[in-house]
């Protein structure tokens, strides 16, 4: 079992979701985050003060997958999110120790799907 964490551009979310659904991956958690990689931020001005925090809006996806679905998930995210420009984002893959479906208390691979 793996946990896939993806950081993508906010305006790519709908395309990524469509690609995931197409690969039969329907369970997903989405949150708004701030961040940057090598992408430069925008300087903000508030009266006299210059704010150069550089953090930009991103979307974070968390998807739990069985091992067979790992590559399809990665491919779906890349297809939906890639533009070829800096700022496309990153995917992190973590080994997942356990997964529980709260409603039925199932565990393991059956709980993921």
């Amino acid at each position, binding site marked *: 079992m793996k946990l896939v964490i993806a950081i993508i551009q906010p305006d790519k979310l709908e395309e990524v979701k469509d690609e995931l659904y197409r690969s039969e991956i329907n369970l997903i958690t989405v949150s708004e985050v701030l961040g940057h990689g090598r992408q430069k931020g925008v300087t*903000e*001005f*508030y*009266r*006299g*003060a*210059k*704010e150069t*925090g550089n953090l930009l809006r991103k979307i974070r996806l968390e998807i739990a997958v069985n091992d067979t679905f790992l590559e399809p998930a990665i491919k779906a995210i890349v297809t939906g999110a890639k533009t070829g420009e800096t700022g496309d984002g990153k995917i992190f893959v973590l080994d997942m120790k356990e997964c529980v479906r709260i409603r039925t208390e199932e565990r393991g691979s059956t709980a993921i799907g």
Partner: protein
Amino acid sequence: MNSGDTAWVLISSALVMLMTPGLAFFYGGMVRKKNVLSILMQCFIVLCLLSVQWVLYGYSISFAPGDGFWGGFKWAGLAGVGLEPYADYSATIPHQAFMIFQAMFAIITPALILGAFAERMKFSAFLAFILLWVTFVYGPVCHWVWGMGGWLRKLGALDFAGGTVVHINAGIAALATAIAIGRRKNLDKNVPTPHNMPFVVLGTALLWFGWFGFNAGSALAANGLAVNAFVVTNTAAAAAGLSWAFIEWIKNGKPTVLGAASGAVAGLVAITPAAGFVSVIPAIFIGLLVSLFCFIFVSRVKTKFAYDDSLDAFGVHCVGGVWGALATGLFASKAVNPAGADGLFFGNPQQFLVQIAAVAVTLVYSFAVSMVIYKIVDSVMGVRVGEKEEAMGLDLTQHHERAYTILE
């Protein structure tokens, strides 16, 4: 008694009342999320506190005909302040209409100051400071400029709607308190940014709207002078909004909404003393230039001298008010208001000197007494919140309240 005048003054009173909540949103949007309720609460409580103080003794010390410096307590509890006109102030409206109109000015003036010490003042100390301030600073200065027998009024100082009484007064008190209370923690690492710019714009709109009552209502009659004040108020605000936006465009590369809004407010401040004495072309100059002066103070002078006037109460209200008062000495014309005077550009340089005197006296008096009051309150109860409380935010620590729920 004139029903048109009475109706207009009552409406103007309501318009000026709306400026205090408007100010609350103007300032509230500029602070961090964790402090927005403290701004709203301070403004709201001032509305409550001053409304009561004014009828108990505030109106009396400012407007009762005492001596040149102090009105006295003859009209405490509004004794002798009835529904018949009091001719020395306004012959065509009930005396209480004049009183309630003035109440709204007394309410918003202390509210202006809170921009200077935003995000770090204890609520209890705030109440004590404000009450002492309106009694010993606003009360007297108001009497000097507008009260019967007031010595600045006798000197011939022109202040149509409160450039000196309200804006210079509050603005320099803001500087005093900003210096006394000290800079917010971690200011260089953590540039505080406005948490809700839409609130700032909404607040500006309410202020602009209410200011028609502030300036045009000060004619105390539904007549040509009120119309003049209305027209120059709108024009100066507009010119100043454009001016600030363009200054930013040139200096920083882009015009910001905060800049345009700040400019409009600065323009409204500057035209306040002049509204019943100048015509529309001078109003444009007054508006165009105030943004330049305020911008310099807000961005250059503040950084250079490192005082943390958090929301630029000094930079906008004091600087704008000083320019407005001096500009009145330049552009005033008896053609606009025969009961006023001519300014320097109309052949009467004496008026300019009188304006300088009134400005100087107010600056010195308000700064000094505000500082004294601050020190007294500080020694009795401590004014500034502790470091941990400042970090957690005033909403939670001073009011046990959260402005925006996180989950539901």
